[in-house]
């Protein structure tokens, strides 16, 4: 008995479903669907206009960056794309809200995703910050000979994430900007001139004044040695185990440093030979009982 009523009820419902597709019903559906269609169109419009605005905002940032003298192109482009993507995210959320979808959980998802991306990019973001610092404060520029994070080389490339050095034997060293800005930087080029300091050891029996005179002359004779800020200088810096150590100091342009240093090694050694000044071998005295 109970089953029968259930059956009839189901049958009635089925009939009802068939009755859902009569022409009157369809127009009724259209009327009820109309606000939905309008919403969809509105959402798409928001999306379209929003994307335009996002691109426009990005371009404006890029133009402002271009006008500013201490923001270079890499940095400008980077800031521009950040602005563009932030605006786009807002536009997408606005469009979805307009559709009537509950955005709270979408926003939560976006929040979690942002946190994940933030954590993932923690290091990279640090590098970007350091890159901005490097570009604003310019502790080194392209072509400088520097020591950064324990590595020496000529600065070959600088971008927002990394600094590349070419060592003198042509190994490319790519240093994260965080590492570069976080460590002490030695710039061998930026001050223009450098002093070449080399110790030469002469025999304890040699005439020190004569040796000093020879060294000063050898320095003065080199075409790349400068007389400013100081003329060539030589003095006894140490009475060493087997030799009297005289330090030779000569100023030159930063880019001539190694040439001057190596040339002086040769010319001083040859001048010593000519004037009977000896560079002694290590000497030790053994005492026998």
């Amino acid at each position, binding site marked *: 008995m*109970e089953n029968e009523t259930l059956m009839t*009820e189901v049958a009635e419902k089925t009939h009802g479903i068939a009755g859902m597709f009569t022409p009157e019903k369809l127009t009724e559906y259209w009327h009820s669907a109309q606000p939905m269609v309008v919403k969809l169109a509105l959402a798409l419009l928001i999306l379209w206009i929003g994307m335009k605005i996002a691109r426009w905002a990005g371009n404006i940032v890029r133009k402002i960056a271009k006008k500013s003298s201490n923001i270079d192109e890499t940095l400008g482009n980077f800031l521009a794309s950040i602005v563009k993507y932030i605006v786009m995210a807002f536009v997408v959320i606005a469009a979805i809200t307009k559709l009537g979808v509950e955005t709270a959980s979408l926003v939560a998802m976006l929040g979690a995703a942002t946190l994940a991306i933030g954590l993932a990019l923690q*290091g*990279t973001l640090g590098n970007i910050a350091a890159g901005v610092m490097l570009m604003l404060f310019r502790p080194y520029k392209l072509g400088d000979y520097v020591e950064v994070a324990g590595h020496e080389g000529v600065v070959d490339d600088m971008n927002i994430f990394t600094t590349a050095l070419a060592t003198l034997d042509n190994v490319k060293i790519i240093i994260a900007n965080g590492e570069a800005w976080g460590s002490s930087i030695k710039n061998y080029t930026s001050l223009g001139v450098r002093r070449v300091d080399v110790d030469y050891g002469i025999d304890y029996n040699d005439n020190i004044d004569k040796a000093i005179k020879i060294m000063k002359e050898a320095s003065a004779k080199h075409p790349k040695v400068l007389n400013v800020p100081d003329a060539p200088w030589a003095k006894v810096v140490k009475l060493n185990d087997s030799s009297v150590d005289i330090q030779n100091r000569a100023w030159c342009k930063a880019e001539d440093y190694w040439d001057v240093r190596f040339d002086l090694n*040769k010319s001083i050694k040859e001048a010593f030979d000519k004037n009977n000044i000896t560079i002694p071998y290590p000497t*030790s005295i*053994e005492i*026998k*009982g």
Partner: protein
Amino acid sequence: MDFSKIDMSKIGQSILESAPALLLALFILFIGRLVARKVGVATERAFNKRPNANAMLSRFFGNVVRTLILLATIIAALTFLGINTTSMSGMILGMGVAFAFILKNALSDVAAGIMLIVFRPYSLGDEIEIDGFKGVVTAIGLIATRMKTRNNVEMIVQNGKAWGGVIQNHNAYGKRRLDTVFGVSYDADIDTAIAALIGTAKDDPRVYKDPAPWAKVVKLGDSSVDIELRIWCDYDDMRKIKMDIAQPVKVALDKAGVGIPYPHEIKHIQKLQTN
């Protein structure tokens, strides 16, 4: 529980009443899955079309986009079922935060991997040094870079160490300078020795004419005058030249009468004065 109390007619009715919503939700899921797959594939293709495309990276981005769309679809479907998703948002946020923290290191390695693939500080086959490990790159993954040493030991270094630290790429520039120091006797004529070294370098056809071989006195050492020979060559030839250069240099120095000294030490022997 008393099953007889359940009103079957009511159940049928409520099933029929909720059927349209269920169907709609299923329909949304179906469409969403389709859209997710299509957009995922499209994303992958778009990334593959870029000039510095990488198949693995494109697939990764495709997967990320697909998963995000699927998640959004599921939330939308639940909304249509009449489930209040606002209350779920807290849970989603919490879980997301928890996972982000748990996977923090892996995530930063993945981020570094993406950077490495996009900016290419090194590519497959390059000889590099990261974090004290030196070898030839055999694979660049999202999480780690694999290298092998010349004597075939495999090394796996997390990408975070490469992108966050210092990378030394030995063949990025293609050509290299090979520096070798030779110590010659204090008695020898320096110019003769330098001429012998440069002459030997020039005899090797693999050595560049420009920049020309260079040799200068780099140090007046304890027992020898140290002359450094610097020659430019292709990176591929450098290791071979390094192994090949010592013998002809020795021959040339012998011929020029330039000695390579043993370490010197002068000993004065004194008798202890005893009373």
